[in-house]
């Protein structure tokens, strides 16, 4: 073996590949995750059924004469939202662990953040998909006129999903490497979900009660602030969870 020679970069020929940028790589990862989920559909339907079951159980756990279902609905909606979201988050990095596919992702010439963003995007769509069914189900089971506030509700749902997915995707990446992955993910995530659930539920109940939107605004500010801070912080933190 010769000693090292003076190095000059090998000239790239015209047909050389253009390495995917952050957005493109994130999109590829998200697309791949969604393709896997679509192929099996198990996790999605499990989360969906879980959400519906949860709504049902909560309904029967209260005395309908003591508590009006319309008062119960916002809380139940957003609590179920977080727990069914957790089911989706659990499997997020599980697919990468199975045959060490994560190594192939890390060996690819893409930025590490793209892996996080792509998976977070896929998780967002997963959570949103469950909500598309769960929110009407709440309106149905609890006899709540959610349709009257559907626009605001969609906005709240989007903001809440962003927060849950930002934190949950990161913790999913961490939990998958520990011994108690299924227990650890909810335990780490739930304290972080509390501001989200509070803001979403309080806003929903105020809007349902017909109170002016200005009353809901402080809560929405918290939710927005949470999303901004944690989407940024988790994206930055993600490369630190990798072994480098």
């Amino acid at each position, binding site marked *: 073996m010769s000693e090292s020679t003076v190095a000059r970069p090998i000239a790239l020929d015209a047909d050389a590949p253009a390495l995917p940028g952050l957005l493109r790589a994130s999109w590829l990862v998200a697309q791949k995750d969604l393709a896997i989920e679509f192929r099996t559909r198990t996790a999605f339907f499990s989360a969906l059924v879980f959400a519906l079951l949860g709504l049902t159980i909560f309904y029967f756990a209260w005395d309908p004469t003591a508590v009006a279902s319309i008062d119960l609905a916002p809380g139940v909606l957003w609590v179920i939202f977080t727990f069914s979201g957790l089911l989706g988050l659990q499997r997020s990095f599980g697919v990468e662990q199975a045959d060490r596919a994560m190594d192939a992702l890390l060996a690819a010439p893409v930025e590490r953040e793209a892996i996080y963003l792509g998976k977070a995007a896929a998780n967002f769509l997963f959570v949103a998909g469950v909500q598309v069914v769960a929110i009407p189900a709440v309106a149905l089971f609890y006899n709540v006129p959610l349709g009257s506030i559907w626009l605001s509700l969609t906005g709240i749902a989007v903001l809440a999903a962003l927060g849950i997915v930002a934190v949950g995707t990161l913790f999913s990446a961490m939990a998958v490497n*520990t011994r108690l992955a299924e227990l650890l993910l909810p335990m780490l995530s739930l*304290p972080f979900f509390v*501001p989200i659930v*509070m803001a979403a539920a*309080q806003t929903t109940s105020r809007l349902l009660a017909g109170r002016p939107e200005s009353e809901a605004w402080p809560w929405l500010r918290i939710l927005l602030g949470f999303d901004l801070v*944690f989407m940024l912080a988790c994206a930055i933190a993600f490369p630190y*969870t990798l072994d480098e």
Partner: protein
Amino acid sequence: MTTPITGRPSTSSAGGADANTAGDGARSRPALIDGWIVAAALAVIAAYVRIIWFTPPEATQGLAQKIYYLHLPAALNAYLAFGVVFVTSIVYLWLHEERADLVAESSAEVGLLFTTVVLITGPIWAKPIWGTWWTWDARLTLTLFLWFIYAGYLLLRGAIVEPSLRARYSAVLGILGALLIPFIHMSVYLFRTLHPMPIVLKPDRPSLPPEMLHTLIFSFLAFVLVYLALVRARYRLSLERVRLAALEGSLEGGR
């Protein structure tokens, strides 16, 4: 490159120049009860004495109010401990200094202890005053969440065997947890406020009469001393464990 903590005779001691610092096998093992712990214990006893005998009881709340001298300093130290976790987490991720991780671990355990004290003394104080054991007032709720974050932090550590992975993950959680606290604070405050008006930490003069204020400060300093002593002892335990693991590793040969 970081200074690896392997089985070298320690020329670098943690913190002050304490004669009891662990050396190589030739010297005696460090005493479990060292100067710091004795000093802390004395300070706490002195604080208790002052609280019970030398501080007048409060007018409206009576004797039960005296638990406040434990409750508030414990709370402040619980948050101080988390501040230390936050800072050492950043230091670890930035410098990869293993010792920062050990300090974080020690501070988290002691912090959990203090937080538990707050959560126990809170209800004990609340029952005679408010009539219920638990009130979801803003401060106590925030402390409950601090407890959850500490618990999550320590459980995460417990679930990871490999040291550098554990340190990295803990550091990330330490930083994110610190970011969470203001949001919990805002959420809970917006939700309800039932706590007695903050009679010490007002921007202008605290409205406690002088003897009570002094007792409070004294108690606070005693608790800080306890915090430092416990963290120091726990940190040295961590160092011993790391050295033991390194020795075992080198005994296995060629790994």
